[in-house]
């Protein structure tokens, strides 16, 4: 055990390939069970393969516990780190189990194939509104499934596995490098596109790949960095932010790697058309007048032309073009540009439209000319602009950024000023924060705490603080390492 900050931390081992293979197959089996009946060959083949993997593991370790703690999956005492394909099944199952009140299962050594299939179908088909873990446990008994033990949702005070501090630091550092490299790459690509030179698609894809890999590890660091908006060339930061938000949504939706890469690519280039607008217009500090708006509303069409002119046509280019064109059209087709045929919006366009609106309003650099606090943005998007967005995707987005998005400055009831570092999906009102000061002044050493920790019961978020009003440079806080 080592001590770090306020909490004891247990060092957790990372899962090896056996555990990784096991959990990926396990989660995929649940998803398959939702779509096919138990006699279907697709399910039978997957089940048979999974059972072989389970048997190998069980023969080595005895029973196989699978626990979900704060969205992280452990097999035994080993933390599973997912690649994107594994994340597809994981995210889905984690959420489903949470809704049923299931915090994990223990698969007994003597569990046979039939019992396993019964268990899978029982949970996969459970009606979330009518079931909970007790009902599911009761059904296990009724069905004679003795080889499976259900675990309830673990409370926070139980020993929670964290990543070691140096690993966290590495991830933070990697997130920063990836983020700023993305900004730099976008700048480079757009500069060349401005000169009508070919767009370096491979370079853009590399950046997107790195962002995806980073988000798959831990999305919170990159999401935190989206709060850094104080740059001279906002366009590049904005594109990177949209990319981060969009990819996070794409991962939650379970898009495969190829489509995630296309989504990220489309996000990077959604505003490509702006390079053909006057720079003075883009950088204009005052509010736009009607004439400015008319010019600005050309950028979707200009984006399509630039993409088609400068890129070879393939899925990436086509996706990027449709997003460039559609991201301001709105779900109710009241946006721009006007359409000859009102076709359903592309999925990526819908995702990026949400991310784009949020970031544009949060930055105060493009449309509103003043940054708007996150909660106000969410309120506007949910209530005043709701018909503009896909309702489900908007919900997903809010789920990601949370009530207090990473990078938000908040005042705690303990009269401490803090920066939100990570959303707590189980308890959105109590994220992880970094306390940076109190009324006596800024702290010499920042303190990282988890508001959901009972030890911090005396601390709640009182209000969101607009850093611009109080001349606070959140960038300085986000980029500081201890």
């Amino acid at each position: 055990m080592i001590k770090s900050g306020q909490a004891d931390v247990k060092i957790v081992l990372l899962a090896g390939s056996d555990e990784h293979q096991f959990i990926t197959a396990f989660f995929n089996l649940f998803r398959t069970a939702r779509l096919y009946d138990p006699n279907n060959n697709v399910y039978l083949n997957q089940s048979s393969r999974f059972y072989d993997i389970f048997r190998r593991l069980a023969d080595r370790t005895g029973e196989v516990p699978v626990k979900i703690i704060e969205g992280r999956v452990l097999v035994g005492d080993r933390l599973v780190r997912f690649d994107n394909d594994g994340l597809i099944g994981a995210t889905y199952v984690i959420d489903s189990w949470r809704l049923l009140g299931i915090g994990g299962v223990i698969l007994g050594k003597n569990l046979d194939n039939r019992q396993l299939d019964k268990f899978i179908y029982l949970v996969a088909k459970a009606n979330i509104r009518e079931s909970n873990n007790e009902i599911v446990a009761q059904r296990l008994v009724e069905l004679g499934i003795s080889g499976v033990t259900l675990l309830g949702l673990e409370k926070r005070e139980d020993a929670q596995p964290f990543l070691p501090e140096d690993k966290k630091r590495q991830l933070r550092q990697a997130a920063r490098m990836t983020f700023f490299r993305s900004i730099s790459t976008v700048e480079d690509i757009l500069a060349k596109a401005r000169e009508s030179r070919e767009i370096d698609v491979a370079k853009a894809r590399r950046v997107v790949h790195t962002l995806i890999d980073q988000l798959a590890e831990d999305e919170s660091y990159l999401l935190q960095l989206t709060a850094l908006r104080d740059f001279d060339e906002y366009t590049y930061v904005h594109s990177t932010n949209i990319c981060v938000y969009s990819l996070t949504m794409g991962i939650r939706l379970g898009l495969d790697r190829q489509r995630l890469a296309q989504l990220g690519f489309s996000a990077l280039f959604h505003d490509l058309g702006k390079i053909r607008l006057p720079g003075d217009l883009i950088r204009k500090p005052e509010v736009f007048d009607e004439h400015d708006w008319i010019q600005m509303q050309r950028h979707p069409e200009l984006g399509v032309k630039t993409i088609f002119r400068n890129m070879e046509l393939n899925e990436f280019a086509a996706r990027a073009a449709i997003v460039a064109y559609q991201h301001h059209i709105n779900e109710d087709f009241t946006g721009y540009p006007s359409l000859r045929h009102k076709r359903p919006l592309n999925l990526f366009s819908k995702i990026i439209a949400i991310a784009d609106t949020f970031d544009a309003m949060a930055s105060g650099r493009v449309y509103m000319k003043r940054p708007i606090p996150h909660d106000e943005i969410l309120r506007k998007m949910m209530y005043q602009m709701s018909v503009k967005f896909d309702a489900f995707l908007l919900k997903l987005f809010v789920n990601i950024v949370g009530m207090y998005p990473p990078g938000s400055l908040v005042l705690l009831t303990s009269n401490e000023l803090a920066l939100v570092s990570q959303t707590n999906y189980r308890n959105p009102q109590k994220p992880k924060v970094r306390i940076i000061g109190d009324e006596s002044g800024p702290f010499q050493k920042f303190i990282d705490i988890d508001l959901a920790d009972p030890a911090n019961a005396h601390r709640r978020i009182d209000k969101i603080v607009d850093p611009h009003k109080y001349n606070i440079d959140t960038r300085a806080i986000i980029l500081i390492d201890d």
Partner: protein
Amino acid sequence: MAEKSDKTKHEITQILGEFIRVIKITAMYPEDNPLPRKLRDSFTDRFVDLVQEAAPLLLEIRPNEIIYQQEVVYADKSPEDALAALLYKAGLNGITLRQDFNLEDCQKFFSLLKSYINKEPGAGDLIALLWEADLPGLTYHTVDDALLDEYDAEFLSRSGDPVRESFIKGADDSSKLEYAAIFDADDAAALPSQSDLFEDTLAESKMGIAPGTPRKQKAPVIDTARIVSEIFNLEKSDMARVDEIIQEDALFDPYQTAAELLEEILWQPRDFTDFNEIVTIIEKLQTEFIKAGKLRAAGRLINLMVEYGAQAGTDRPQWARRLQEAVAVAGGREKLSVLADTLNREKAISPLDLSEYLALFGWESLMVITDLLDDLESQVHREAVCDFLAVHGRDHVDFITRAIYDKRWYVVRNAASILARIGSPKALAALEKLLTHPEPRIRLEIVRRLARKGDLESRRFLTNLVWDGDDLICRTALEAVIEFCLSEGSELLTGIINDDRFAGLKEAYQESIIMAYSRTGGDQAVEYLARLAAAGRFWTTQEQEFLQRVSFRALAVNKTEAAEKELAGLARSWKRKVRNMAQAALRHRENHRQEAV
């Protein structure tokens, strides 16, 4: 230990040395052929064994060599066999293979390298392929990663910064006052003012924010708790929605999408420069559609330009002309040559799609389309183009006729094929010029094409080829004529029999003709056959004897009464041979009658 290391290095050298060669050999055969599969499996087995023994296997990739444990284990020998150069140019400068690099991973790795080397569609970026494959036991390092390590540290963390107050901008007294105001519960700045919220109504309207809250109202309470409780948690119905979304998105078609987008932006230009740019883009994409074998999508773009051109009409003649040019270019030599390359690469493109695409172009493209035949490798595609030209070239036979004077035999053959398909008097008149062409493959093509046509004129033309010196041509023409005559009458056969060259035909052919004539010629045929039967009073030539024998066989199958009578008369002949042949013929007729009964 050193010995083991040397052994490993030697094995690595061997494996890397064989890599490209194995890929090239497997690429030469169809996927399901056991030979390449066996070769691949043997190679990948050895590769995996090597990795298992030596993992982690770190290979550094340089422009022309690969390094393992600071030693060169592979060096490129020739441009055709340059694995290091290939990987380095793709952007890789290192590969690490770990213990869990298993056979499945290895085969996937092999497969994607093969796709990359063979430049298969969608396999142009090796690093993207590796990333998408996400092989657990393989890590790759790129040139970009190396650059990242030296990345400008300006944005990196500022660890150890003792000045923690740096997050307060300015750090002067007024800044400190502002900081202190954060903790002041009554600070007016903490609450949004009315004017702040509604400052930019134009922006709000452009962004679609509903003008729900009038200016004079008190600023709304920021009720984020309501947001959280209403929408934060995803429910089961949301999970079902995820599945729907994923399945809908899987139907995305880049070509259809591009075509739809082009349609949208084509209707939005503000001036000719703008419009011209869009048309140029359409032309570019049209070529890409063709390269990808998406003829329907390519055709859609042509239709789009034609439709818009018709609408632009007299109002915008410059725009209409620009579109006409674009369509003409699309049906021109350069673009159709791209089409030919694609058809040769993608043999599965359907003839129907091809015909529909060619039908978009006017008669001006007929010559070029005829030339297209020269380049097509697939018989199916050539047939489709010929059929197309037969239909669309009917009123423009002159264009096709020009090709019959070409020096290249296959060009002449193609033209002949088309003319034969057209079969109009003008086309047949042109074909006549080819009856004496020295190249038999041309004449054979004419025969085969005309034989498929069921009309009299084509069959009449075929009678010209009954006299061809090439036996296959002669026989094919004859069979076609006979087949026609058996259902349509004997007129053509009469012409052949009366021709001076009849006797010069092979006996088997003469017999076929006579037999067919007997079956179809009725009483008229009996008259002729009787003359043949009675040939020579005292002596006969060999030829006469042959014809005599054939005539009795022919009379045996002639269904008329006249034939019966003639045979009855001949059965009483004083010449025993004639008498016997007549009786045999009568018996044949009787047997045939009884069988019919």
